[in-house]
């Protein structure tokens, strides 16, 4: 019978990366249990994940081309592509401890972009200003609906609108009069309600700030998971960094798409 400790560690590996010491312990336990299917928990987790993945996802064309190029380079033994950095450990433990070679520049670049834009980088770089991008999206026929302010103190004088393009999976929030925030005190967080999803599970649109003194603020909307059919945008007031689960106690503004 498989020990609870081994199952605990296998569960941990299937759901979160174990710490070095736990990984070493797991490797040691697995070496002593050649009868154990080391990947069974991972497969179970993968099956559960498959069950709830959104429907009809397709690779963006540009990304697909990149993947084909990567594959061609890999199969032609390009050392950059074929480095051990991309090996995923499955099955029995390797003779030596795992050594992670990540792409640290990615984190640096992402942090830099975040610092510059104050928001997520877009799907494609644009030389247009945010108002120009917003206007262009409206010209393309994106949906546009005004904010409805609640009685939350942050929204006493709030107005503006949200522009959303279902096809592009992007949009822009425009705010006037929404209370400026000190990011270390609180932040605003966007939630997108999707008709194709259970309403209990709105898509997290990320956190953003309203700088003091700005008459008008435009915030890009680029959700990190697909939105099938956006029906409601809601902005809540949350702790710095945003929340995993919003208690919805402080809803600042909402916009319902017709």
């Amino acid at each position: 019978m498989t020990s609870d400790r081994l199952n605990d560690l296998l569960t941990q590996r299937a759901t979160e990366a174990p710490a070095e010491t736990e990984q070493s312990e797991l490797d040691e336990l697995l070496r002593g249990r050649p009868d154990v299917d080391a990947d069974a928990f991972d497969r179970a987790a993968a099956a559960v994940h498959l069950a709830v993945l959104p429907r009809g996802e397709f690779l963006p064309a540009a990304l697909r081309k990149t993947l084909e190029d990567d594959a061609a380079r890999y199969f032609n033994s390009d050392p950059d592509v074929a480095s051990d950095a991309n090996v995923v450990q499955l099955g029995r433990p390797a003779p030596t401890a795992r050594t992670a070679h990540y792409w640290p520049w990615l984190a640096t670049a992402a942090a830099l972009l975040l610092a510059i834009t104050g928001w997520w980088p877009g799907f494609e770089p644009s030389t247009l200003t945010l108002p120009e991008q917003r206007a262009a999206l409206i010209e393309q026929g994106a949906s546009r609906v005004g904010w409805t302010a609640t009685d939350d103190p942050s929204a006493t004088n709030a107005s503006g609108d949200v522009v959303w393009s279902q096809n592009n999976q992007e949009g822009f929030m425009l705010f006037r009069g929404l209370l400026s925030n000190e990011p270390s005190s609180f932040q605003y967080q966007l939630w997108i309600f999707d008709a194709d999803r259970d309403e209990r599970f709105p898509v997290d649109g990320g956190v953003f700030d309203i700088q003091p003194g700005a008459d008008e603020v435009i915030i890009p909307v680029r959700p990190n998971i697909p939105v099938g059919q956006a029906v409601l945008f809601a902005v809540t007031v949350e702790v710095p960094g945003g929340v995993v689960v919003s208690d919805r106690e402080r809803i600042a503004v909402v916009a319902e798409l017709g």
Partner: protein
Amino acid sequence: MNESILERIASGDQAAVAQCLDRYGGLVWSVARSWSDNAADAEDATQEIFIALWKSAARYNPSVGSEAVFISTIARRRMIDRLRSKGRRPSTEEFDESVMFELADSAPDQGMVAAEAAIAVRAVAQLEAGQQQVLMMGVVQGMTHSEIATVTGKPLGTVKTQLRRGLIRVRELIEQGADSADLKGAD
């Protein structure tokens, strides 16, 4: 019996790459997007996952699961490593005690995805609501066990136990399903 896509890739058949991207590209992209902060990060992750997949294709064993599950396993492992290395949480959605799993529609050529996913849904449906919630947070949301404990107010040990038991139940049902239905291979 025809070779699976991954078996063809493992044998160096580059023509199988396009088929793999056709059939499983959306799946990988979906996993990467759901656990990335932005599109650029998701694209990088997708590249990493597919390179890892080309490297790992030879390890695919059709006798223990479908290609979809194998590829999802690779994708999840890669994303978990990325999340840990960046020290950040993945995407967030809201859950409550009554969360229930629903089977997402699958593309016409993803029959095997649906088969194993359906078994997973059945297995999860047998768990009590609190366990379902924990499993959803740990498996789909990519939350750490400590984060789940914080959000749900459950002791960390309870979270770990519920995750372990939930995955064991799913695994048992998948194994039973594999005995009664052909889940092996995707072609």
